[in-house]
């Protein structure tokens, strides 16, 4: 024992160590991402100064690799925020209906093409990304109005489920009446980083920075909520404002992610779990760590999706669903055993 009492918990250095490690791994993933193409793995240095290769790297691989990193970052952050806000380790970023809202937005847009020249013109400007984002945000608003505000967590969860089911049914109905949109819809529903551009990366980076900073600013509130809503109120936390702000962060991060890469399952759910399995930290640490973990998960999943059966590509959303689902099953099994 040292003479000085240990005031700070021992976990803090471990948390910053984990952050550094995750950051390094993300950079590694980024470098690999630049090297994986339709011909499989080709190290960057072997390409030399080939103009075509440079163009492929800059205009195809770089934005989608960065896009996977940023999408994963947004989903990991949203997942940690949702789990803290709803005090439920199974909460995921799409909980408030944003995913089905985004799908419906995309379906509506695709169906509207060709209905009238004016509509087409307007929708082209909005684009698939815009439609998905608007759909996601409107779905969250619908959930909020159905739950009559943010006062009751259980009501919010229930409203989110209802909105998800109803909007999902509407999307199915639209696809049934217009089978020609099915293929385009499928690309969106399965999730893919193939369509991420540099400008999309810029938007996601700005949203990621904003949401991370805002979420960290509310981290103390999330810690307080962990002790229960009544205890949080007894500690003087403004619960309604806190919930409102956190739902805003959740909607913006999830909407942005889903708009650019479609529905990518399990990253938001699994990333905070993985972090918690390694360190025990406050939300001020958990939020950025979960974000980094999400970035890492999706980057590597994307690498596999692109490289596994090259020159063909798997939809990354399918891969994350299989990997994430498998991980959660293992986690459940382990927890079940330890409780027996």
């Amino acid at each position, binding site marked *: 024992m040292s003479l000085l009492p240990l005031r700070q*918990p021992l976990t803090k250095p471990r948390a910053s160590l984990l952050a550094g490690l995750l950051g390094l791994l993300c950079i590694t993933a980024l470098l690999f991402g630049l090297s994986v193409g339709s011909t499989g793995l080709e190290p960057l240095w072997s390409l030399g100064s080939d103009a075509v290769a440079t163009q492929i790297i800059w205009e195809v691989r770089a934005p989608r690799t960065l896009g996977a990193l940023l999408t994963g970052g947004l989903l990991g952050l949203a997942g940690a925020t949702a789990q803290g806000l709803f005090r439920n380790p199974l909460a995921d970023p799409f909980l408030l209906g944003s995913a089905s809202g985004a799908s419906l937005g995309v379906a509506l847009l695709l169906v509207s093409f060709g209905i009238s020249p004016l509509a087409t013109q307007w929708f082209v400007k909005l684009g698939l990304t815009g439609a998905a984002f608007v759909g996601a945000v409107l779905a969250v608003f619908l959930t909020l109005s159905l739950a009559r505000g943010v006062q009751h967590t259980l009501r919010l969860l229930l409203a989110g489920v209802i909105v998800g089911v109803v909007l999902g049914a509407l999307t199915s109905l639209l696809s049934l009446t217009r089978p020609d949109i099915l293929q385009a819809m499928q690309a969106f529903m399965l999730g893919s980083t193939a369509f991420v551009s540099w400008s999309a990366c810029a938007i996601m980076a700005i949203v990621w920075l904003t949401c991370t900073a805002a979420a960290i600013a509310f981290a103390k509130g999330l*810690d*307080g909520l962990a*002790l229960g809503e*009544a205890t949080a*109120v*007894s500690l*003087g936390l403004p619960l309604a404002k806190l919930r409102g702000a956190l739902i805003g962060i959740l909607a913006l991060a999830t909407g942005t992610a889903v708009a650019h890469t479609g529905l990518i399952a399990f990253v938001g759910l699994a990333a905070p779990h993985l972090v918690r399995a390694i360190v*025990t930290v406050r939300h001020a640490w958990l939020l950025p760590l979960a974000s980094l973990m999400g970035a890492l998960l999706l980057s590597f999943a994307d690498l596999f999706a692109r490289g596994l059966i090259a020159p063909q590509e798997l939809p990354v959303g399918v891969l994350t669903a299989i990997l994430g689902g498998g991980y959660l099953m293992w986690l459940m099994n382990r927890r079940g055993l330890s409780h027996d």
Partner: protein
Amino acid sequence: MINTSPEASDHSVALEAEHLTVTRGQLEVLKDLAVKIPRGRWCAIVGPNGAGKSTLLQVLAGILPFQGQVRLLGQPLHRHAAQSRARRIAWLAQSSAQSADDLTAYDVVMLGRLPHQSWLGGQSAADHAAVEQALKLTQAWAWRDRALGTLSGGEKQRVLLARLLAVEADILLMDEPLASLDPPHQADWLILVRKLIEQGKTVVSVLHEVTLALYADDLLVMSNGQIQYAGERDEPALHRAIEAVFEHRITIQPLAAHWVALPTLN
């Protein structure tokens, strides 16, 4: 029913309520209740399940909406800003209602300092000192780095108790603080409460164990959303009231300069 002005109010009263009614759905949980909690004393609330004990405690903590008047040191409770109220009144929920499993014991106790911190401000030396002192008072210092979810029920309860102490509030409201503590730590808790009273603090606790409640200075006997009797520990009329709300299934007897509640088996 016009109340005296705050200036004229009695400063020996920490918390008081008048015409207090709380409804949940169709049910009146508290019915036109009046109560005075004396300052600098320990008051225990006893009564059968569903009597409204926890609800009363939550109203006094300022975390539950109500009809009627509640005053903190003579001032209407709602006139206190949330954060300043939180610095004066600390409330401990029943342990089953709390599950910060993924925070360390230290971080949980640090949450008790929230009322003293600005929104974006960090933790001051005073915060760390208060957390350390609270954890040592409840003998939970050794587990400061462990996640709350890895502690046993009694260990967790001592951490949550430290969280309450870290607020350094003048009024401490505790709901079933002894529920998961073993006898030695129940005794420790009684000693701790005595210390708090000596420091001039006011303690209000809901207790199921009538024998332990009979260590308090004052007792409130509740049933059916009303206070049936309020009195000091040694009053025979208080003892009869307690026996009555528990349907005479207990009798209160003196033993070694204390009171014990024994079950009646007939």
